[in-house]
């Protein structure tokens, strides 16, 4: 029976020859992830399991990234619980403040993700790692608890949608614009329960950072996972980060897709998601005049080095609009250091932006940039739900780092093509 890439990874980890869509399987996991919001719930559940040991000290990652550095006493309590659990169970991949970064940027960077892996995380954006040819998906805390104890999780084998890419993205257009375009096209439940598989000759023109951004937002179309084939670019990244040998799965020639979308990358425009759903997209040409109060550049979607470089390219030698609070948060300590070495942080500070330590903070309305009633933000994050970044009467517009940086300069949502570089 022919299978998609995602189905092959599930079959291999369930130790069966073949699986088909809809089938329920119990499969072995390569990595189990939790953060300071989801792990405390999982730790309580784990205690009910009646075992002292986790299944494998190397295959669990605990990242305190959401409300850290601790935003209040309750957050401190939750982090303490997670820290103590990590020490008690001798979990090797616990990342304390100073080593911590936003989980979905951190784990691939630390070499914890390999091609062919099966990964679950108690965080919906765990789907990010599909960029490296892994099957990874978000689950809840009870799944995480059970997985920490047994090393297994149950899966319903997903059907798949194929996005066949051709051509090359134009200047100032990035993976973020492509995934916003796709979500706008298929809707926030357009890939519900399904895999999104990205194929075609256009893939080779997408950088690793583009691919992480694209897979990161698969969940915003309701998908179970997003996944790219493993090519030279992915192998190069893995060779630089991961000590294990990649296991390469590829879809069968005659694998079944519920639908194939043909996308010419050269036709993609800078794209913005209007409040309050990621599928409420407009191209930059249709945006109109939208006054903004805050710009947020960072997150697990767009806090990587190439995102910061694009922002710096636009902000260099200029000042942000005095009415726009501009907050930039690199996703990991390594990215932060690299941005420092390349002089990007200086460009940001000189432009009148603030640069934060790695944290999820503003992305989920946690801390470090909460919006007041009636305020609008352009953010490179992934969700613009009601109240996501603060007051229920505030608004979030999702965009690429280029659009966000251009908007910081003018105070309106702005096409980066109109900004003259210094």
């Amino acid at each position: 029976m022919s299978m998609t890439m995602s189905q092959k990874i599930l079959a291999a980890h369930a130790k069966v020859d073949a699986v088909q869509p809809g089938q329920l399987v119990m499969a072995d996991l390569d990595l189990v992830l939790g953060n300071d919001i989801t792990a405390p719930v999982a730790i309580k559940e784990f205690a009910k399991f009646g075992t002292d040991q986790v299944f494998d000290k190397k295959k669990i990652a605990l990242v305190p990234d959401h409300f850290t550095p601790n935003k209040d006493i309750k957050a401190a309590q939750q982090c303490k619980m997670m820290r103590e659990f990590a020490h008690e169970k001798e979990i090797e991949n616990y990342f304390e403040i100073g080593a911590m970064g936003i989980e979905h940027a951190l784990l691939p960077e630390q070499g914890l993700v390999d091609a062919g892996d099966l990964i679950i995380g108690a965080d919906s954006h765990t789907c990010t790692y599909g960029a490296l040819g892994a099957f990874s998906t978000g689950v809840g805390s009870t799944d995480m608890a059970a997985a920490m104890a047994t090393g297994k999780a149950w899966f319903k084998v997903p059907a798949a949608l194929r996005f066949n890419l051709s051509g090359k993205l134009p200047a100032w257009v990035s993976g973020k614009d492509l995934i916003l375009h796709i979500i706008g096209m298929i809707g926030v439940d357009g890939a519900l329960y399904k895999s999104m598989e990205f194929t075609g000759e256009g893939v080779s023109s997408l950088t690793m950072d583009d691919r992480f951004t694209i897979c990161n937002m698969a969940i915003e179309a309701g998908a179970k996972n997003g996944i790219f084939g493993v090519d030279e670019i992915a192998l190069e990244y893995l060779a630089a980060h991961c000590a294990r040998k990649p296991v390469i799965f590829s879809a069968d020639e005659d694998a079944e897709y519920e639908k194939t979308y043909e996308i010419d990358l050269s036709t993609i425009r800078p794209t913005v998601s209007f409040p309050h759903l990621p599928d409420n997209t407009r191209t930059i040409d249709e945006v109109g005049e939208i006054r903004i109060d805050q710009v947020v550049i960072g997150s697990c979607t767009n806090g990587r080095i190439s995102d910061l470089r694009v922002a710096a390219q636009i902000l260099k030698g200029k000042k942000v609009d005095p009415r726009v609070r501009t907050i930039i948060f690199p996703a990991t300590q390594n990215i932060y250091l690299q941005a420092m070495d390349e002089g990007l942080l200086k460009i940001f500070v000189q432009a009148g932006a603030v640069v934060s330590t790695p944290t999820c903070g503003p992305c989920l309305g946690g801390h470090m940039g909460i919006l007041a009633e009636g305020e609008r933000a352009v953010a490179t994050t992934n969700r613009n739900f009601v109240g996501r970044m603060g007051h229920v009467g505030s608004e979030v517009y999702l965009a690429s780092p280029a659009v966000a940086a251009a908007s910081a300069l003018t105070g309106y949502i702005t096409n980066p093509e109109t900004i003259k570089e210094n």
Partner: protein
Amino acid sequence: MDAKGKAFRYGNNVDTDVIIPARYLNTTDPKELASHCMEDIDANFVKQVKAGDIMVANHNFGCGSSREHAPLAIKAAGISCVIASSFARIFYRNSINIGLAILECEEAVQGIKAGDTVSVDFSSGTIKNESTGESWSAQPFPPFIQKMIKADGLINYLRKEARA
């Protein structure tokens, strides 16, 4: 196990950020979470909900973040069953894993208004609008999931399997 109560009615794409906003996620206490459940789109929910009441929504209920705090908050608020046209997948598995009853039934969703009294028979999957007399049958869970619900959630199910 049956459910009967007043229907709270919501639309499409109710996301976990409105079910329980992130600003309250610095606790894991279900009662405390429940006290803020739905407040960003329906401030009256917490004031009006009674034990046993039923939540009814359109497509893609529970989309967004993987926070298990969302089904926990709904359950602790007293909701006995959520009926929706479709559920977001992480919410779906979280609900099963923690033992919050959820049913997918487009026709029932169309036939239930806010405030109607609704009853649900879990063994047969029958949903009845007691206020209008109409009834529908929802898809039963696949056997694998039925076993998990019977064992009262994932953890107990796996413990049982481990002993077997």
